[in-house]
């Protein structure tokens, strides 16, 4: 019965392979890929309900009981992320139908998006750290192609940099895996947690933990984000939005799993480093967002600030901070996708990338302008939109744990986020319009639909927080008490 757990990984892969044969039938490709995403979202909702009634679900592949086989584990945290990822991808697909163009569509754009999502979902669901590596690679290979697709000079250059950085990061991941396997002789995450708890987290294991911290920090854009602004600004808008919404979040998810489940025993060292890195990330992200002149650069640095803020929640580590971090992760996925879609559309309609050169867009595109206003308020954390509750809960956790520096930095970053986005709003949307009525390029209807849907998600996440609270609290509870997860995986059959 639990077999539906594998659907979020398998369905996108099978559909993607199927779509390869439908290269010339673009309409059919669109319909099939969108239906697949909706189906995966529905599966995620069903899983979420199932976890509430039956506890943490797992599938041991071919019946090999852990710790011997490989397995998928679904707790509320991972399924919430699967749900958000699938919904955001479905909406980004709607946007790409209208904007991506036939050249991309004929070069297997939709299969690659589906492969990307399969890797992301697999990373969220796997209960085995080597499979985490494999799913990371599935996701990364798809993302390499999506950056390079189009073949422009700057795209190829950034893609090459991005690939090389990620190859080195994956190498470090393997080194960390080798040392981990050498030390604890197991790869099942729950079993690792158990072994670490039995043996105590000595200096060797703490070193391994720090190695994992470096790897996932590179993937998540935590402090080691030098590759991010470049590679996030070259691909087409729909791809940028997908990257902003999904890629760094997988790294963040891995960090949460590593430091709540596997290595939680030496917080003096690991969580202090995490806190320092989160603080430095927020500071550097704020500086980048303030100094950027290019709208895409400002948006990329906003991704970095978001990463820092979520990891404040992990560094603090109390239950309310965890709940806040989960809320904020869900919010960040939807809001960053909308931000990147809107920024990309601004570049498309004006043909400019520098903030100063755009002006008065709200006269030509009133709804578009107010949607930007909504996402700006959400990212700054203005109630009742989605960012507010996450910020409040993380702040509450920071007060409980008496980390006032992180608290101060976190909330100061909200002001910077508001300022940097407000600068775009005031300069680009208000003032004399630079586009005359005859020159106004219409925004495709499909694009507007995707904006409205994402904005509805943002409002829904904020207003409907009460309905979501059950799942988020369950996720946070499991994160703070890893024994629930370990019991569910290792002792389920007894």
């Amino acid at each position, binding site marked *: 019965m639990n077999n539906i757990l594998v659907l979020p990984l398998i369905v996108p892969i099978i559909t993607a392979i199927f779509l390869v044969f439908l290269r010339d039938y673009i309409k059919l490709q669109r319909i099939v890929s969108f239906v697949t995403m909706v189906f995966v979202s529905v599966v995620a909702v069903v899983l979420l309900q199932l976890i509430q009634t039956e506890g943490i679900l797992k599938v041991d592949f071919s019946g090999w009981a852990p710790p011997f086989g490989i397995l998928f584990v679904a707790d509320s945290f991972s399924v919430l992320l699967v749900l958000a990822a699938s919904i955001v991808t479905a909406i980004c697909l709607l946007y790409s139908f209208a904007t991506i163009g036939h050249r991309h569509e004929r070069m297997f754009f939709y299969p690659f998006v589906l492969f990307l999502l399969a890797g992301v979902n697999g990373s969220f669901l796997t209960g085995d750290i*080597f499979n985490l*590596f*494999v799913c990371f*690679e599935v996701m990364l*290979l798809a993302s*390499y*192609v999506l950056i*390079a697709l189009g*073949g422009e*000079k*700057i795209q*190829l*250059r*950034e*893609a*090459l940099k991005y*690939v*090389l950085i990620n*190859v*080195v990061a*994956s*190498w470090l991941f*393997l*080194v960390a*895996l*080798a*040392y981990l*396997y*050498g030390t604890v*002789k197991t*790869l099942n995450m729950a079993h690792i947690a158990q072994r670490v708890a039995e043996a105590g987290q000595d200096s060797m294991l703490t070193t391994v933990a720090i190695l994992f911290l470096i790897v996932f920090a590179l993937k998540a854009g935590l402090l080691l984000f030098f590759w991010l*602004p*470049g590679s996030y*600004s*070259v691909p087409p808008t729909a791809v940028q939005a997908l990257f902003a919404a999904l890629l760094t979040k997988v790294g963040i998810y891995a960090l949460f799993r590593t430091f709540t489940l596997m290595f939680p025993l030496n917080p003096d060292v690991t969580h202090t480093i995490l806190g320092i890195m989160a603080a430095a990330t927020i500071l550097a992200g704020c500086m980048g967002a303030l100094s*950027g002149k*290019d709208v895409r*650069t400002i948006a990329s640095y906003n991704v970095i600030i978001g990463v820092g803020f979520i990891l404040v929640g992990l560094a603090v580590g109390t239950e309310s901070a965890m709940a806040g971090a989960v809320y904020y992760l869900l919010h960040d996925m939807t809001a960053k996708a909308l931000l990147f879609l809107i920024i990309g559309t601004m570049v498309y309609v004006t043909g400019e990338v520098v903030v100063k050169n755009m002006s008065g867009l709200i006269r030509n595109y009133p709804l578009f302008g107010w949607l930007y206003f909504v996402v700006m308020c959400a990212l700054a954390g203005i109630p009742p939109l989605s960012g507010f509750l996450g910020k409040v809960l993380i702040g509450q956790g920071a007060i409980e744990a008496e980390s006032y520096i992180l608290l101060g930095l976190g909330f100061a970053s909200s002001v910077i986020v508001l300022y940097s986005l407000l600068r775009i709003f005031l300069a680009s949307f208000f003032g004399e319009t630079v586009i005359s009525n005859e020159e106004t390029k219409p925004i495709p209807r499909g694009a507007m639909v995707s904006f409205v849907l994402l904005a509805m998600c943002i409002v829904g996440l904020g207003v409907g927080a009460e309905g979501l609270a059950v799942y988020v609290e369950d996720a946070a509870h499991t994160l703070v008490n890893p024994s629930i997860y370990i019991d569910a995986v290792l002792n389920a059959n007894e």
Partner: protein
Amino acid sequence: MESLMVVLVGILVAVATYLILSRTVLRVIIGTAVLSHAVHLLILTVGGLKKGDVPLLSQSDGPYTDALPQALILTAIVISFAVTAFVLVLAYRMYLTNGSDDFHELGGPSDE
């Protein structure tokens, strides 16, 4: 035997680092390939080199050799194949577009 392997891994990492820091794209790619070989050997070594029998339970009295590192390396090799193949194609396309395989001539910050 283990110490010999570790020294070999060290040499491979040193070679790979040297190659990755060079200016030509092709040498960097060869460097990443060597780097992945180094880590495969590392996994084999920390997993324990062959000390016992093939792990077929009840066929011999043991001790058995751990087969898992080999499975891990096999997966990692396939992935590194795929990535290397992709990056070679990417480098070739970039050579066609830019007419150079020198990182300095690609140059320029990302927000030009």
